[in-house]
């Protein structure tokens, strides 16, 4: 599984702690983390189930092109987790299937 660089012994300095919620449960992450990195560091590699077949997916490219890391953030569906920095109090939800369209 994924480990942070400082935990892996590279000497990188840890940033300030930021708390977000994922599906209602609190996790601690680091200032500057992307949501995708925070999820991986917290041991949550599968952030969504695909829209068509419902297969679990996780962050793949970490640079905004693959669209596999889509999550709901603060009530907005289909946000790219790797392109969004964590903010104190952010509410992230794992997406199961396609987003709702509220008629």
């Amino acid at each position, binding site marked *: 599984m994924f480990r942070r660089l400082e935990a892996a012994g590279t000497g990188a300095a840890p940033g300030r702690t930021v708390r977000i919620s994922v599906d209602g449960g609190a996790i601690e992450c680091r200032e500057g983390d992307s949501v995708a990195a925070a999820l991986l560091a917290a041991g949550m590699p599968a952030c969504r189930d695909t829209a068509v077949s419902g297969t679990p997916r996780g962050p793949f490219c970490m640079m905004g092109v693959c669209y596999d890391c889509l999550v709901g953030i603060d009530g907005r569906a289909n946000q790219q987790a790797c392109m969004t920095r964590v903010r104190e109090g952010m509410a992230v939800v794992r997406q199961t299937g396609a*987003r709702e*369209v509220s008629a």
Partner: protein
Amino acid sequence: MAAAHHPEFDVAIVGGGLVGSSLAYGLRDGAESIAVLDEGDVALRASRGNFGLVWLQSKGFGMGAYSRWTLGSTRLWPRLAARLLDETGIDVALEQKGGLTPLMGDYEIEARLAWVNKLMAQPGVEPYEWKLLDHHQAASLVPGLGPDVTGAIWTPHDGIVNPLKLLRAFHTAFERSGVRYLPHHGVTRITQAGGVFSLETPKGTIRARKIVLASGLRNGELGEQVGLHLPMAPQRGQIIVLERTRPLHATPMVTLRQNDEGSWLVGDSQEDAGYADHVTTLPVLATLADRAVRTLPALKEVRAVRAWSALRVRAQDGFPVYEQSASHPGAFIVTCHSGVTLAATHALTLAPMIAAGALAPELDTFSTRRFHVQKT
């Protein structure tokens, strides 16, 4: 494989899009060997840029026979879809539960109503059920219909299919039944000698006893080589694709539909832009988006993921063209703008006629002769 190694085919279809593919699919019972000659991925390929409607209500204004022909195809569609599923395991996601043309305001309603009444009164039209719905009736078919949509034309015959899956199903059927699909065989020259056609391609010459020109917008120039003079007039359409959402179970509309896998198509413009299919234009896309959001306000929050332009295959008057060449017997031409809607009748009605070597008299009205009226 070098072309020189190919045998002489019974039938060669020029064009591997939906029109050529549906004909090749339907010809298999009546032809010993079939080749489908296609271009590569650079082909204009209306089959990959279309809206995927199986649609009757807007067809045949100016030619009643086209309405009747289309109605026949909508009736055959369930049979085609079932056969493809059985043979290839691919569900083309046909849904024929009715379709709507949304109308905004009194002017649009009155103009469309007059237009439909005039269409239905033409000779050659087989009457079918249609209704003008008010806002509330239309809203019962489209959850969350916007208040700007004050009316809609509805008919039970209209529907949708997944056009990409349809093309894939045809090509899968070819692999399983010995139809030779030959990409990168764009035909440049056609000659006929001793009852055999020679089709020159970048990959060598293909020989066939019968040929079917189904090469979309290239049918004009290829038709000339077998004595068929067909003026083409491409028409550009722009489409926006929205991200996948949960199914809303909205009745498909002529310019707004949800796909079986959740994405939405927002259409579509009708532009005279020559062959410029490589650009989209903001004024058009903005208009399409605005109408879509007024039709279904919930889509405001749904993001666009793609937009494209594609060219409709159109003969000058917009109606289909079916003809066997008088100067080159055995050469058939097939041109239409609704390769999806007509796929069923092309496979199940037209292909057997071509296999038998003659088009039925009912198709006379679709010949190129209508373009060559004497002007004194």
